[in-house]
């Protein structure tokens, strides 16, 4: 069941009706969702779009309401305000049938029209056009092949198409996230690693354990997850192929085995090892040879490695200066270690934006732990969240959004915040604590 709880504080009194409409049509396809989405803050001036219901291919597409998923994606981004179906005066399915003046009069900037047609062998073709209502021009047209089973994914690809045409940046709707859900009260808790669509739908359990699971990390091709599991009562790092569920235990050395991070080329894992002496340092494990290279050698806690996009540098957390701060070193020589963060007594768990220009991390403000971003060019820091126990930020593959874990009303929930700070939404689990979200890569069309 899709749960949408939208709690918009400020804008747009006129858009509650469309919400009800969106809710009604989204409640129809009963797919179980692990997450609910609350938009807690959107842009002050969202772009008005009309997503006209697509012509359906009757039985072949299973009655799937593609336009409703697109509407939900776009509204969920906080950057758009989609028109309610009840207020639509017409339902064109081709660009040539769109009377732009009518949509302009209704206050829309863009109209998306499309249709699903059935071909032989259960194949479906989804075609759509996006019109700029102010100019009357078709700003883009696209089509996708689908089957009844892939309609939801194609819907997210249509959302990506609309997003890119209007915003000018690649959308991240057709991507996946992984996260850990913890259920039950201490000390008898259950830990599950999930992979779900970026909107929280289609959640699948990857690993189910009575002992902690931590630090899921995607391979660059989106086919594998690395994670830490305590299933043997000691920490071990596994890599697991999602399609087959085949996995390999790649590190179960004495002491801490933690914080795995795939190199951009997929051949190595950066990780944290302590040995029996308990001194955490960063190492790089070459998966093909199991060769280990030590990157840091310091009596402090060194952990939470993150690769630069070119794979030449590692950012990591170290408390060598007293409290945790972010440092950077080059992988080849690891001779020069440079401190990157200042300004707070606690800066930890860095992640790099895909373009390598921005660092996201956890920072302490007073007694609160929040998500901050730092411009690596000019050093400017912005704190993006207002929670008191926010942690584990991870970038969307388009670099526009961060997903993180926060705590609201005693529950850990997932939330996203736009890197420009304008949009915040919360993804709430049906039950249990949800933590350590990581956003998977783009996976092609």
């Amino acid at each position, binding site marked *: 069941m899709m749960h949408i709880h939208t709690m918009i504080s400020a804008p747009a009194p006129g858009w509650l009706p469309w919400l009800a409409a969106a809710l009604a049509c989204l409640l129809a396809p009963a797919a179980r969702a692990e997450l609910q989405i609350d938009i807690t803050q959107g842009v002050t001036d969202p772009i008005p779009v009309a997503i006209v219901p697509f012509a359906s291919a009757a039985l072949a597409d299973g009655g799937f309401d593609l336009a409703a998923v697109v509407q939900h994606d776009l509204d969920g981004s906080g950057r758009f305000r989609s028109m309610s179906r009840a207020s639509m005066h017409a339902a064109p399915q081709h660009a040539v049938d769109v009377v732009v003046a009518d949509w302009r009069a209704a206050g829309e900037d863009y109209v998306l029209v499309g249709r699903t047609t059935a071909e032989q062998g259960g194949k479906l073709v989804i075609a759509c056009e996006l019109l700029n209502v102010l100019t009357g021009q078709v700003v883009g047209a696209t089509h996708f092949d689908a089957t009844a089973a892939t309609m939801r994914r194609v819907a997210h690809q249509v959302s990506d198409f609309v997003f890119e045409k209007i915003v000018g940046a690649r959308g991240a709707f057709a991507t996946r996230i992984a996260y850990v859900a913890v259920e039950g*009260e*201490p*000390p*008898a808790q259950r*830990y599950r690693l999930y992979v779900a669509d970026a909107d929280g739908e289609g959640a*699948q*359990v*990857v*690993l*189910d*354990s*009575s*002992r*902690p699971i*931590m*630090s899921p990390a995607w391979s660059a*091709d989106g*086919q*594998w997850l690395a994670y830490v*599991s*305590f*299933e043997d*009562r*000691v*920490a071990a790092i596994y*890599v697991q192929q999602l*399609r*087959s*569920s*085949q*996995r*390999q*235990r*790649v590190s179960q050395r*004495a*002491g*801490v085995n*933690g914080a795995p991070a795939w190199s951009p*080329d*997929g*051949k190595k894992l950066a990780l*944290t090892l302590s040995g029996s002496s*308990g001194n955490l340092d960063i190492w790089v494990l*070459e*998966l*093909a*040879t199991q060769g280990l290279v030590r990157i840091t050698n310091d009596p402090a806690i060194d*952990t939470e490695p993150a690769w630069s996009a070119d794979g030449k540098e590692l950012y990591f*957390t170290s*408390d060598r200066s007293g409290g*945790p701060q972010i440092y950077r070193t080059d992988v080849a020589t690891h001779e020069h270690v440079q401190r990157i963060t200042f300004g707070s007594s606690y800066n*930890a*768990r860095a992640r790099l934006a895909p373009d390598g220009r921005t660092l996201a991390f956890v920072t*302490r403000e007073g007694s609160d*732990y929040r998500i901050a971003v730092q411009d690596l060019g000019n050093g400017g820091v912005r704190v993006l969240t207002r929670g008191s*126990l926010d*942690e*584990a930020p991870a970038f969307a593959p388009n670099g526009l959004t961060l997903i993180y874990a926060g*705590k609201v009303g*005693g529950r850990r929930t997932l939330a996203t915040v736009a890197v420009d700070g304008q949009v915040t939404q919360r993804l709430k689990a049906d039950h249990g604590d949800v933590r350590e979200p990581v956003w998977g890569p783009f996976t092609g069309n």
Partner: protein
Amino acid sequence: MKSNLMMAVAGLAVLMALAGCPSKPVLKSSGAAAGTAVPGGAGSGQNGAGANANGPGDQAGGAGAGAGTGKEGASAPVGVARLIYFDFDSSEIRPEFVSVIAAHAKALSANASIRVRLEGHTDERGSPEYNIGLGERRSQVVRRALMLQGVAESQLSTVSYGEERPAVAGETEDAWAKNRRVEFIYLN
């Protein structure tokens, strides 16, 4: 990319087999896109490392303040607390727990066959992996204190759970104080 990774992992499997490493678990795919691996149950032995078989109930102490509430082995000294607590962001042993550690050291040094696992924990604040580091530091401080009092290194192992296994739920100072702890798990 995909083939690189496949080759890397395949190569790893071969090398590990050659090196005589424990065989990897082969998780059953449930046929669909994503199967479910279920460790920790009866099948955990195939992972090649689960030396102890305490069963799922090995919850070690829990919310109780200390003396002998766990299910661990019979070798634990009677009437000695198996939990010690720490101040925020600190791994210093508080004065009131010096005698607790001394009592464990006495029991352990008197019988070299006794094995203890020291489990370090933190409260929930801050970054999970950094908290693994803090929990490890706490368990190491206790380990070194025991060794200084005559316990053999081979009797002791450590594991840090960071903030992942709280003793109690809640966002209060009291709950956090109960979660910043090292637990003594007697393994035999």
